């Protein structure tokens, strides 16, 4: 690739998730997509009243007996329109104007059905959840499964009303992340997610220099964490939300590898998931105890096993039950004295023991008596809220042409 004339290295476009790209394109998306299932084939029609464009295409099953859910999950992991109607009865009698009007009138309406043969989904929710589960045997079952996932995000589905909650945010509340040693690159996040809140990136000088003026929507705070080794520096900001954001009442930490896909604002996210507790995280997608996490850290050589197992022995001596494990690329917190105490205790464990923060979080929560809420599903699947992206180190360039 020719570097002449470039003052900054390129950022990798793959760090823009399809959900974010779709959201940024919202005004130009077709109004409605109709997937009509008939005779094993799927006719997909897109149309947009504003531009008077209408496009149709027919897709056929890839293999014999490909189920409707499997074909839909293959064809439509993202919905290119604002609404998606899946129809298994022939689309001639679909009152598209009525469908559109119903969704326009109810912003928290996530999905509808008219008796189990026709299903309508809000496009951004379909996209954030990655569509229906192709493993489900029938369209009805796939839709019921998807309804449950949509309801967990607080949207209305047949039989379940919307949860109309919103946490009032202050101007110092924030979404924040941190990167040190150019370990990752900033990801663009949905433009309207933070709302009035701030979107802050704590970067060391090296990472800040790489990004230059291209902050991708983040407000950059550049500087080094004093007296902290590089492995712990980004975790300083992650653990110490009350020190990173002393004026905040609510904060959302996201690892730099996380792309926000939530079809909602931070205010609504906080309203939904901080209703019962002051902190919300994901359950680990695969492991259920600190002991299992320690084993994984040892196998992957992520830290000194002696340090980790000494730490676990100490926890056992104190009577820690070790029956849960959080996965911590995303942390939604209300800044209360109890959470501040948890933060400080957690950071203390990270500095005196393993730098792997998942080794100590559950112990610290138990020790400080803090109960936590869990986001639905896990980070290993399309959970509708956050996507764990490929980590892209700065300065890597590839081109097939030059």
């Amino acid at each position, binding site marked *: *690739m*020719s*570097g*002449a*004339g*470039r*003052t900054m290295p*390129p*950022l*990798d*476009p*793959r760090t*823009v*998730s*399809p959900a*974010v*790209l*779709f959201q*940024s*394109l919202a*005004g*130009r998306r*077709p109004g409605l997509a109709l997937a009509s299932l008939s005779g094993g084939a799927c006719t997909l029609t897109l149309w*947009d009243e*504003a*531009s008077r*464009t209408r*496009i149709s295409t027919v897709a056929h099953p890839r293999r014999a007996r490909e189920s409707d859910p499997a074909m839909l999950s293959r064809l439509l992991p*993202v919905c*290119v329109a604002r609404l998606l109607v899946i129809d298994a009865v022939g689309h001639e009698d679909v009152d598209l104007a009525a469908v559109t009007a119903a969704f326009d009138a109810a912003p928290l309406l996530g999905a509808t059905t008219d008796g189990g043969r026709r299903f309508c989904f809000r496009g951004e929710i379909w996209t954030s959840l990655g569509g229906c589960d192709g493993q489900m045997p029938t369209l009805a079952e796939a839709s019921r499964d998807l309804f449950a996932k949509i309801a967990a995000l607080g949207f209305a589905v047949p039989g379940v009303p919307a949860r109309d909650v919103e946490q009032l945010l202050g101007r110092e509340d924030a979404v924040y992340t941190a990167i040190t*040693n150019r*370990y990752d690159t900033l990801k*663009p996040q949905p433009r309207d997610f933070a709302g009035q809140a701030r979107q802050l990136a704590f970067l060391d000088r090296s990472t800040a220099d790489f990004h230059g*003026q*291209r*902050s*991708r*929507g983040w407000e950059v705070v550049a500087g080094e964490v004093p007296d902290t080794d*590089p*492995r712990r520096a980004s975790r300083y900001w992650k653990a110490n939300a009350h020190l990173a954001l002393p004026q905040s009442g609510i904060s959302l930490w996201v690892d730099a*590898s996380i792309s926000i896909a939530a079809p909602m604002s931070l205010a609504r996210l906080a309203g939904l998931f901080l209703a019962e507790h002051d902190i919300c995280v994901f359950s680990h*997608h*695969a492991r259920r105890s600190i002991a299992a996490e320690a084993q994984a850290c040892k196998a*992957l050589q*992520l*830290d000194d096993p002696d340090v980790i197992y000494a730490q676990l022995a100490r926890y056992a001596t104190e009577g820690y039950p070790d029956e849960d494990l959080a996965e911590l690329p995303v942390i939604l917190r209300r800044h209360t004295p109890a959470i501040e105490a948890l933060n400080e205790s957690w950071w203390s464990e990270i500095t005196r023991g393993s730098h*792997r923060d998942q080794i100590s979080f559950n112990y610290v929560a138990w020790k400080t008596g803090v109960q936590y809420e869990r986001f639905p599903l896990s*980070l*290993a699947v399309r959970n509708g809220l956050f*996507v*764990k*992206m*490929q*980590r892209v180190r700065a300065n890597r*360039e*590839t*081109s*097939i*042409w*030059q």
Partner: protein
Amino acid sequence: MMEQPPSLAQGYRLNEPAVITDQIDGEWVIMNLANGAYYGLDAVASCLWQSLLSGETPLVAGRVIAAHFEVPEERVAADIATFLAQLLDEGLLIAGSALPELVARGENRVPAAPYATPCITRYADMTRLLALDPPLPA
């Protein structure tokens, strides 16, 4: 590659809905939903991309760029022909006028740096986007 060089005198438009694109914080990002490929553009290519999406013919866009960078029109035209062939090969653009409602938004920032051959980079490893539990730095 295409057998005939693409015409620089006609208009081209985004191959919607299979291809989506937007300018995010100054960077153009292109994604082909049909095959999951992502594309990044360098500074001159970004400038060209914006011009083509807004309905300019490659010929006109080339003249503007040649004048701005003070390089021969012939050189820019040759570069644009190659670049355009790549866009068409990848199915990102198709011949035709841009629909007014679908004209891309975004600010066309003509790069201040010296002229460089426009370059598009293709990333085909879409499936790697969902990496599960990658280890943090040791």
